[in-house]
């Protein structure tokens, strides 16, 4: 089962994406815990795209594609803003709060905590961030 939605890259879109994931999880029978993890990871990744990837321009699109196979969920987020590139690791600040994540942010940290595989590529077709979540029986 595969589903996709394309919206403007703005913070209001995050709520739409959460609803989209909820509905997809319901239809595909993904449990509440896994669904919560997916929403958290997508929220973090899309916040980065909105606040940094499209900084300084009238925002373009952000595409969210979900693909469900038995025991495997693949999430693909595509945008067309500034690409990201790997940088030196920076540990999250233990004193930071969720509202103020402090140095480096907590985005990728959360994504790594909740997803099993992460991939990123950037090219002519856009910037594509992929997560894989293995689902338990």
């Amino acid at each position, binding site marked *: 089962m595969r589903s*996709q939605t394309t919206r*403007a890259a703005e913070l209001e879109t995050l709520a739409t994406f959460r609803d989209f994931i909820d509905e997809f999880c319901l239809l595909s029978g993904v449990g509440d815990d896994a669904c919560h993890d997916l929403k958290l990871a997508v929220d973090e990744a899309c916040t980065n795209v909105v606040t*940094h990837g499209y*900084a300084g321009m009238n925002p373009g699109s952000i595409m969210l594609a979900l693909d469900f196979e038995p025991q495997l969920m693949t999430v693909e987020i*595509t945008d067309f803003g500034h690409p990201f590139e790997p940088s030196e690791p920076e540990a999250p600040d233990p004193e930071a709060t969720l509202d103020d994540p402090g140095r480096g942010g907590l985005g990728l940290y959360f994504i790594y905590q909740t997803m099993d595989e*992460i991939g990123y590529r950037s090219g002519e*077709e856009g910037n594509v961030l992929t997560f894989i979540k293995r689902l338990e029986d």
Partner: protein
Amino acid sequence: MFRNLRVRREPQKFAPDPLQVSIDEIISDASIPVSIRSINNLPDNAKRRLYRALIPIGLLTRFRINPRSWKGPDGSDQVDLFAKPESGLVNLSIWNGEDRDDPIFTIELEDNSLNGIDLNLLVLSDPDAPRFQTDFDETGARTEFGTVRRHLDAEERAMNAGLAPGQTRAGLRASSEVFSHLESFLTLLAHHAYFLEPLSYASAWVFERRGFAYVRGHKLMDEIHEGFQPEGRLYRQLDESTSFRAQDHWNSVRGRAWAIHDGILDAMDARWDGLRMIKQVGRNAGADTYPGGEY
């Protein structure tokens, strides 16, 4: 595996510069994107063979043009190919009959600064439909699709005949076929996407339906839709002060497009420029900034 990401400040090119790729490399690696410039540097007949793939055969045969020779029934040329060596631009035009200046089909592609490909122009005009001189003003100067100057009388007649801003005739209803050919052509060149800047609100809406997403301007399109809702900022500009600002224009794609063409985006401190769209080859983005909108 990366543990942290940062925004890349320097734009990254999608493909190597054309001059850095040899014919041998292109032959040995089918995944290297080929530029328009590289094709334009081929011998005339070789590039003509390749560019033939850009024109739907059905379009040519509909006007009794030979798809191989590009000649009409009387043996006269009906297709112009502009693809100069060392240039990154190709322009193909088809005309029906004798008037080269009134093409039924024009497509223009150009290498962009990131070594991707831009669709600069796509015109599909039905030669049997009435023509409106929106492309020249009263003094005979080019209007550049109404972006530089306007021919108001002709625009009003075009609007009343059901055309969108920038059009001189009704379309040929062949854009789906043209995009299908274009994507096959770009796949042949190993490109994964192409880009364009929509001329009008109506063209952006049509390109959404053809599967395009936005590199820039998706949020602006959402704001425009919101502005056209009753009592919204754009809705309030539909004050009948010109025929392009008719009150019922909020409720159709063409109506909105003409009102925007007439300058109502000033009301939200915005302008119709800077929008850029992308089509990923083989994928429909499903963007829909005017849900339920009618043309």
